């Protein structure tokens, strides 16, 4: 029917209006929920950015649908009422109510209403109808944005300011130091004997710590144990270095092995290879008895050097012995005229010994490097820890009432009037200076200068 088409045309306008209103109110609802979500995140200092955005979008979508479905979806009656507001004087709504009425008057009314509808084209939707809801939605979005910014600020503040924890107790501090020492020793590549010894020292330290009464006693023991560990590591390094230098010096005593000794002293693989080549070249031109004597002498010199060198590394000693065996094996069934065959056999043995020696030197070199790294790490760890200053402040929580070690030292400052002997005031000034040093951030060099000054005075 004509009037139905007319009404449908106007209904399309109101559907668009309804959708737009629903979206605006849906977004308004989503923005309010988002505002609350971000506010909760701000007060709990939790980053809820994605959660909040997701919630906002989902709520906005669902709310938009609900608003359209239950509030803004236009019925035909609503369309009729809106049309009538344009001066049709309730013709349309009456027509809609009587649409199923076939009486004469209903028909006349329908015809009259349809005629009036046809005369005009109404714009049912006006932009200013959206103004107020849009403004409210905008305010809600601004509020949501503000709460989002507040949440981000609070979360960032929480990252920059980690939660304040209670200061550790003295026992916790010492335990931490001990744990760090254990960790370093555990990760170090040192021989088992040394590692066991170092573990033992730390375990003994752990056992002793609780027996002390004062902070100073505990600290002193930790410091001494630490120094002892460092010293043992350093001695081990020196031993390893010495082991190589000893055999190198012994080999240098003999003409046949002098070059090899010089090469070993450099720790350089190329030098060692060059020395082996020299030793081969030396006997390459020899013939008969001369060859036999020289090779035998060389074997004897190597074995003598090994016997005379103390603490030689086992792998290195085995490699050198293998070299000596290569000489002996080559001349075992020597006959004049067999020089070539002898040298060939010797070269095979010499090459094998060379590989073993290089490996031994490499292993030794790595071991020394690891130990030096371990030593450096220990020293660095100790320097970084605040509780390991060079000079410890007098503990604040010391209730033992213990007097300072020197009974002649007074704990109060004394006025220097030019006549008071410095010995009388040295201790107190020393303590004050040390207190100050530990509380101030000074470069290590400056700290050392001050310590040296007081040592000099003492």
């Amino acid at each position, binding site marked *: 029917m004509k009037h139905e088409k007319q009404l449908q045309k106007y209904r399309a306008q109101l559907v668009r209006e309804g959708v737009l209103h629903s979206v605006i109110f849906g977004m308004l609802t989503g923005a309010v929920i988002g505002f609350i979500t971000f506010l909760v995140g701000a007060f709990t200092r939790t980053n809820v950015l994605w959660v909040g955005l997701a919630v906002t979008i989902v709520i906005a979508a669902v709310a938009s649908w609900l608003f359209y479905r239950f509030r803004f979806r236009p019925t035909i009656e609503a369309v009729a009422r809106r049309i009538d*507001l344009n*001066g049709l*004087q*309730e*013709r349309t*709504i*009456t*027509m809609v*109510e*009587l649409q199923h*009425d076939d009486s*004469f*008057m*209903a028909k*006349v*009314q329908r015809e*009259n*209403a349809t005629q009036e509808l046809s005369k005009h084209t109404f714009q049912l939707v006006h932009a200013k109808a959206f103004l107020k809801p849009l403004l409210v939605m905008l305010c809600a979005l601004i509020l949501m944005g503000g709460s989002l910014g507040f949440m981000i600020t609070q979360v960032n503040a929480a990252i920059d300011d980690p939660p304040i924890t209670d200061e550790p107790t003295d026992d916790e501090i010492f335990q931490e130091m001990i744990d760090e020492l254990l960790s370093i020793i555990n990760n170090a590549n040192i021989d088992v004997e040394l590692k066991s010894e170092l573990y033992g020292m730390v375990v003994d330290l752990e056992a002793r710590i609780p027996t002390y009464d004062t902070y100073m006693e505990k600290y002193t023991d930790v410091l001494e144990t630490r120094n002892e560990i460092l010293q043992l590591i350093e001695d081990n390094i020196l031993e390893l270095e010495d082991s190589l230098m000893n055999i190198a010096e012994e080999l240098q005593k003999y003409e046949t092995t002098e070059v090899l000794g010089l090469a070993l002293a450099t720790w350089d693989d190329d030098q060692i290879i060059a020395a082996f080549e020299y030793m081969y070249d030396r006997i390459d031109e020899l013939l008969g008895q001369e060859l036999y004597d020289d090779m035998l002498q060389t074997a004897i010199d190597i074995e003598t050097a090994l016997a005379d060198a103390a603490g030689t590394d086992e792998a290195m000693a085995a490699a050198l012995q293998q070299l000596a065996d290569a000489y002996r094996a080559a001349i075992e069934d020597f006959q004049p005229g067999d020089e070539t065959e002898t040298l060939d056999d010797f070269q095979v043995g010499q090459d094998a010994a060379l590989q073993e020696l290089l490996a031994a030197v490499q292993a030794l070199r790595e071991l020394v490097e690891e130990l030096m790294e371990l030593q450096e790490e220990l020293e660095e760890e100790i320097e970084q820890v605040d509780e390991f200053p060079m000079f410890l402040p007098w503990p604040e929580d010391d209730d033992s009432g213990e007097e300072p070690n020197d009974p002649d030292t007074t704990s109060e400052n004394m006025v220097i009037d030019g006549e008071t002997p410095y010995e009388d005031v040295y201790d107190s000034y020393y303590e004050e200076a040390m207190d100050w040093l530990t509380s101030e951030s000074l470069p290590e060099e400056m700290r050392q200068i001050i310590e040296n000054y007081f040592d000099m005075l003492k």
Partner: protein
Amino acid sequence: MVNENSLKQFSKKSDLIFEQLKRDFIGQEEVVENTVIAMIAGGNILLEGVPGVGKTRLVRSLGRVFNLPFSRIQFTPDLMPADVTGTNIIVKDDKGNSKFKFQPGPIFSNIILADEINRATPKTQSALLEAMQEHTVTVMGDTMALNEPFFVLATQNPIEQDGTYPLPEAQMDRFMFKLLITYPNLKELNEIVSMTQITMEEVAESVCNAEELLEMRKTAKEIPVASEVQMYAMKLTMATHPDSEVAAAVTHKYVRYGASPRAAQALITAGKVRALINGRFNVSYADLNTLASPILRHRIKPNFEAITEHVSTDDIIKQIIKELGHDTPEPTGNHRPQAPTSPDDVEGKTKKSKKDRK
């Protein structure tokens, strides 16, 4: 049964009625329109106005236009009920026997002008009650039907209230409209004087009779009312009651008693007539809003606060309409023919066609 012919007839007759009335009655278009609406709807009118504004002339013109007998009853304090309704008198028959014969009073007419009704005693006023509502008169146990259509137009003077008997609420409720005739403006007064210098007699011609009027009444009754428009009429009525669920804020403040259900009936009935007069085939909110004041103003009892603050019932009704939220203005371009602009146009306008009038 309403058909196309009856609608055409209604439109034609209503145009002619207004045209003729305007020949005798200058200005007061709202009063004239509401009077015609009341006649077609079958209601009674209470006219309030100062003397000399044309109340009697209007009623006489109505009588001429509708070709209906007209009675004027001047209400005075000594007027008796029997003077209105009639009474039995003793007469002698042919044989000389005495018997009672009913002598009908002036109420036995179609149009009754009850002039200054508030001057008569309540007992005399109540003589009109049955006639206005039931269109019957009961005298000494005998009920007699009045002529149809029956229409009472009562008047009262708002100035001289001394020695008067205010109409009881029950009787006020019987009037469909209470119309206020105001003093004419300068232009209208000039026209009135110019016209009456020619002749004081009414010149309106008869364009409708009783049967046609009743037919118009039947036609108007068929006009449909949308359910929400009807509900609006109910809300308008109920909003005048301070205790109702839809009472307006202004009602709570200024009203003591609200309108009766007759007001709601009057709104719908008169609304249908007004719609059809204006060429519409449905009742609108504007119809109800326009008729609200004439229908409700005499049915609302203001309280003491309204009296002391000089808040009239018309003010209260306007505020109620505003609060109900359907106070859309009526579009311009009325269907009805315009009033003649000078006495010379009075003769010439009668024969114009409906098309020309539009």
